[in-house]
């Protein structure tokens, strides 16, 4: 059943895929953080003609499957290579989640802070950049972290548009060496080893921020 030799041979292949998975997660999450913040800010402080359609579009993206979005982008958007496209689609999908997270963060900044800014007649830009956003983002660090871990575990979807990430590599190794058991078990172990300590760290951060 379990073939130690096959597992040993699969290890470097899976780890190489893990490298791709990690890079894709970091890049896509960077896209999601920036885009999510922009979405939240436009919905909160932008002009109505932009805020309303954006809210609708974000709702649509949020409640439709990432897999289908990847397929659609893959055949409809020409001229982008698979990894770039995958990172963008993943980033946009998660931006719609993160904009909600930012929104709760912005709502959690006490009213008195806004009033103090008005009293000091700080310019609008300064209010956001120096007063509201630093507090808002700090308040939502734990959920942001949770979404990063959740995105990390969704990167295997990129394999459907031929990105050679970990599950793609495990699948290829499994089919060429007829060793699915070994390769997929290794992939599962790597996911567990990477995401579990991260979520423990996030929980600790959450406990520290709680007061």
């Amino acid at each position, binding site marked *: *059943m379990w073939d130690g030799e096959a597992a040993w041979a699969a290890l470097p292949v899976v780890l190489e895929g893990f490298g791709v998975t990690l890079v894709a997660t970091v890049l896509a999450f960077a896209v999601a953080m920036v885009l999510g913040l922009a979405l939240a800010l436009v919905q909160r402080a932008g002009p109505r003609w932009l805020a309303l359609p954006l809210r609708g579009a974000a709702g*649509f993206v949020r*409640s*439709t*499957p*990432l*897999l*289908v*979005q990847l*397929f*659609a982008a893959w*055949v*409809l958007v020409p001229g982008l290579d698979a990894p770039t496209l995958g990172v963008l689609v993943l980033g946009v999908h998660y931006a719609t989640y993160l904009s*909600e*997270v930012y929104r*709760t963060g912005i709502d959690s900044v006490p009213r008195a802070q806004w009033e103090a800014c008005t009293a000091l007649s700080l310019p609008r830009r300064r209010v956001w950049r120096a007063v509201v956003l630093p507090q808002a983002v700090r308040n*939502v660090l*734990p*959920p942001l972290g*949770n*979404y990063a*871990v*959740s995105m990390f*575990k*969704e990167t*295997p*979807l990129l394999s*459907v548009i031929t990105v050679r990430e970990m*599950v793609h590599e*495990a*699948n290829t190794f*499994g089919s060429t060496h007829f060793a*699915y*058991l070994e390769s*997929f*078990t290794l*992939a*599962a*172990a790597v*996911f*567990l080893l990477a*995401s*579990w300590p*991260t*979520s423990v760290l*996030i*929980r600790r951060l959450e406990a520290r921020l*709680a007061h």
Partner: protein
Amino acid sequence: MADFLTELRRALPRLAEGLLVTVEATVLGAALALLLAYTLGLLSRSARRPVRGAARVVVEFFRGTSLYVQLFWLFFALPMVGFRLEPLACAVLALGLNFGAYGSEVVRGAVAAVPRAQTEAAVALGMGPVLRLRRVVLPQAHALMVAPFKNLLIQLLKATPLLSLVTVPDLTFQIDQLRSATGSTAASYLLLLGLYFGMAVVLSLLMNALERAAKARLSDQVGSGSGGRRRGSRGGGGSQGGAMASDDNAARRGAGRREPDMIRKTGPEARPGQERTV
């Protein structure tokens, strides 16, 4: 476009079949997930350490290893150990295990958010552990669970296109067939996204109704006064207790919008944006 429409009309029965498969997987996966969520969630609050520990390990395992790996493991690796499951069974099992683990955290958090005094009062009345759970703790916890469960259910629905990756002829598979038959890629995928959006909206409305029912049941049983106190004791500032009691009635008359937010804030583990605590 006209070609697409005629092809679409011809493909309608197959699309309906695909839709049925997707709905079936969603319902069965959600049922299994719910069962596991309750079992694991209640076990991880057990007074016995080994029981609690075992439940935690299972939960962390199924949350920590990606759903996709779980599904592929069941589909590709399990047959190598000698068990071959139907593709649909693989998918339902993977969805159930993964979302059950996430759901168990919702159950655990909601039960933990019910004030201790409620349990103590039930003990004082001489209720046994099962009766206590069934008549006192769970009805209150239910109202807190529905909103995070709604999020999980929609996540689960959105994970169902994975079925097509393990050869199940679901909606995504059928629409992909339509796409290759017509060559109208944009129209096909737009249709698929639209159908999923529709399903998400329907599920969302269904869960909102469920949440209203859970809360209405609660305030019918305990009366709005004690309902308000229950929340006031957790929502910070005791001075809000009285205001919330009257809000409760306003919300029941159909305002509805404010109440979920207030309820969600009561439990430390049930805040919006944190439903998918990983």
